[in-house]
């Protein structure tokens, strides 16, 4: 059994490397902060801090998979957040129409990027660099005069700061959160068993029963621990729930639908995809449109978390999202990269920031360390990729 474990680790070192790194980072910070890092409050905070980058990283993964880049998402989200603030505060729009409108604006911006890149043929770097400048200016224009726009809408601010209600109203523990965690564990176990059975039906290689059980147990415990921790604080936050839903939807699109298959095909070999009857232009349009939607979502999360729209909102978000995607193992040469891994990548970067803040590392050193981790992650990825092939 120990040997099997060793060969599995060796074979999938690339896949598991990031998780091991994450565990390592968490362990170090837990020791350095005397357990403060893993405290219920901090874990809950950590997830809320990473939300607006995580959703960007999801969209960015697909953008990089089709061999492009989107630099406009940072100030794009800042600008869209400002629009939301203006709609609510100056024009007294209720929350639901506001959200719908900014989603539509986000999609329109994304589609425009996609149109310039695919149908006109401008390199994505240039097109979205232009977008970045334009949105930066637009953000300054919209916050001109008033400066920071304070948002006085509790429901909206709740998206970035609030927690899901507990239908059981228990004083000590958030039972709804626990229930959701329990359902996720059940769904996970069920889908793992089904996929294993299926593989065995076709006589593909599967893990031995012992290792398989061990793996399921380990992951169930981790999920259980996360939800238990959240439940013992304020419960699951809206941000956390939104990130979970986005990750789930994109994971399903990427792995289970023809659309996802086409996206990865275009990234893997555009020429072959074209000859196979896949429209590269349409796929590009879709991927940038989806990036636009997630940019709007990120803008909403950020604006609501800080309960205001500021002239500098969104600064460098695009680079944080790109870094998260690369830490998560996407390949710049296209066709390779998992949405879920990018979320974990975002978690790695967010843990670093959070942990370093807790132990009081200065902001200048924080940037240096984050840069070093990014390089290390990509080096590791390249080295293990060569070994696999």
């Amino acid at each position, binding site marked *: 059994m120990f040997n099997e474990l060793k060969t599995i680790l060796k074979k999938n070192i690339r896949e598991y490397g990031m998780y091991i790194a994450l565990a390592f980072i968490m362990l170090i910070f837990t020791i350095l902060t005397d357990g403060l890092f893993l405290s219920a409050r901090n874990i809950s905070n950590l997830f809320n801090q990473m939300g607006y980058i995580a959703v960007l990283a999801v969209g960015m993964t697909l953008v990089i998979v089709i061999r492009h880049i989107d630099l406009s998402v940072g100030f794009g989200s800042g600008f869209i957040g400002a629009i939301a603030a203006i709609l609510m505060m100056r024009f007294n729009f209720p929350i639901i129409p506001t959200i719908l409108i900014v989603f539509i604006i986000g999609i329109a911006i994304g589609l425009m990027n996609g149109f310039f890149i695919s149908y006109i043929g401008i390199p994505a770097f240039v097109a979205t660099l232009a977008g970045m400048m334009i949105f930066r200016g637009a953000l300054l224009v919209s916050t001109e005069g008033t400066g920071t726009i304070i948002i006085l809408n509790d429901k909206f601010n709740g998206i970035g700061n609030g927690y899901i209600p507990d239908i059981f109203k228990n004083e000590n523990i958030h039972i709804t959160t626990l229930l959701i965690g329990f359902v996720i564990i059940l769904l996970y176990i069920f889908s793992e068993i089904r996929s294993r059975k*299926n593989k065995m039906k*076709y006589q*593909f*290689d599967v893990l031995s029963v012992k290792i398989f059980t061990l793996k399921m147990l380990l992951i169930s415990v981790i999920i259980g621990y996360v939800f238990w921790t959240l439940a013992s604080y304020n419960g699951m936050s809206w941000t956390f729930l939104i990130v979970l839903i986005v990750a789930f939807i994109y994971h399903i699109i990427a792995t*289970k*639908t*023809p659309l996802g*298959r*086409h996206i*990865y*095909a275009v990234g*893997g*070999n555009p*020429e*072959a*995809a*074209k*000859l*196979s*009857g*896949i*429209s590269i232009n349409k796929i590009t349009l879709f991927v940038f449109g989806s990036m636009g939607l997630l940019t709007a979502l990120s803008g909403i999360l950020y604006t609501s978390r800080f309960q205001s729209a500021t002239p500098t909102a969104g600064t460098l978000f695009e680079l944080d999202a790109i870094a998260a995607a690369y830490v998560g193992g996407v390949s710049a040469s296209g*066709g*390779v990269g998992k949405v879920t891994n990018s979320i974990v990548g975002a978690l790695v970067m967010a843990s670093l920031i959070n942990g370093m803040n807790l132990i009081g590392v200065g902001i200048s050193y924080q940037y240096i360390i984050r840069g070093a981790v990014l390089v290390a992650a990509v080096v590791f990825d390249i080295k293990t990729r060569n070994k696999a*092939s």
Partner: protein
Amino acid sequence: MSDFILEMKNITKEFPGVKALDNVNFNVERGEIHCLIGENGSGKSTLMKVLSGFFPHGNYKGNILFEGKEQKFKTIYDSEKTGIVTIYQELALSPELSIYENIFLGHEIKSGAFIDWNKTISESGKVLKKLGYTMDTSKKIKDLGVGIQQIIEIAKALSKNVKLLILDEPTSALNESDSENLLNIIKELKNHGVTSILISHKLKEVLSVADTITVLRDGEAVKTLKNDNVSEKEIIKYMVGREIEDIYPKRSSENIGEKIFEIKNWSAYDRQIGKQVVKSAQFNIKKGEIVGIAGLIGAGRTELALSMFGNPKNYLLKGELFFNGNSKKFKTTTEAINAGMAYVSEDRKGNGLILDFDIKTNITIANIMKITKGIFINENEEIIVSENYRESLRIKSHSIEQKAVNLSGGNQQKVSLAKWLFVKPKLLILDEPTRGIDVGAKFEIYTLMNRLVEEGLSIIMISSELPEILGMSDRIYVMSGGKISGELTGKEATQEKIMTMAVDY
């Protein structure tokens, strides 16, 4: 005692799980042309990579003696310094640089710290003259034909003071006259004292130039023989370990029906290069027929195929196209595929397969909707479909989850075929279906083609190999300079007739 310039002794090279070379002994005499042949995956390229230092010393077992001295190459640079130069199948020239810059790329002539351009230009002219060429060496590589590019590669090798020249499939991308030219140059080099190792699949060409032939099979050197009165059949026997009676299998029944596809006055203009690539072509094919399209490289055969197949290169089209008697205008490949067409590309790696995808995702990608229920891909169905093709086409792999990049050329071609058979076409266009694949896999592909036409499919086969065109086609069109310069029935066609039409402008 013979005078060996190169002795490779007991070379063994293992990859994870496979023995690519098993105790190979390979000796080359000074001044000869030594041909190395074998099926794909037999270890030819691996052996040459061991020799050139691509696999550094210590990475393999065995010894290499060059001019009697033991060599331990760590890099390709080491072997080139010793005088061993390899010219790879994929040309390694920089398209935006001039001829003279390319010839001395990596070993520039310097005076002091700077490049001596005048000397570079005059030296590159001299090297080309040695090969019998006088040309303006300031031209960019991208403006030259493949045939001339190959010559530039050889000139580059000569400029490095080559003693042993290794050519890996040098003629695979060349047409007949360019190939002949190149072979003559290799013979000429022999007179200048350069020893050559030639890797090739084309037996005719091997027999016409070789002094000695070594056959590799499954990583072993099975036979080395002098080239006197050797027959093709004999070599094939060593290559495959069995005798192939007739490489072009006979069809059990001829069942040719109605016309299913036709083009009239068909012209295509390539906007990107500003050239008329197809000129008022007339062409038709019947149900259950194999129609061959012969012609030299650049005659417009692939362009014709792509212009009919939904026009992915966005040519300016003129003329009429009929499918099943109805006039059609395919604006996208999707429309052509939906109408019942399929196009198996000549360039498997470039635009045929997605190399990072596994076998099953490659097979289903062109018809993914067929196995989609609601919005989800039915993964069970996908596995069943691909397993079926893996078995029926005998795709050699450890599972359908193996990535395409790790397959041999012949198996990649089979995956490419499976992908297009899965769209259930009525008209299948095969562009150079057997390029770069070995005799055994060729035979399997021919057999498959026969089975398909017997089932009522129509096949257009574009090929540069005349024996293949003659062996397989019911009818043959010959293209030249974008025009269809002639049509022949399979029975009346001969190599001479086709070549006459192919060079007729």
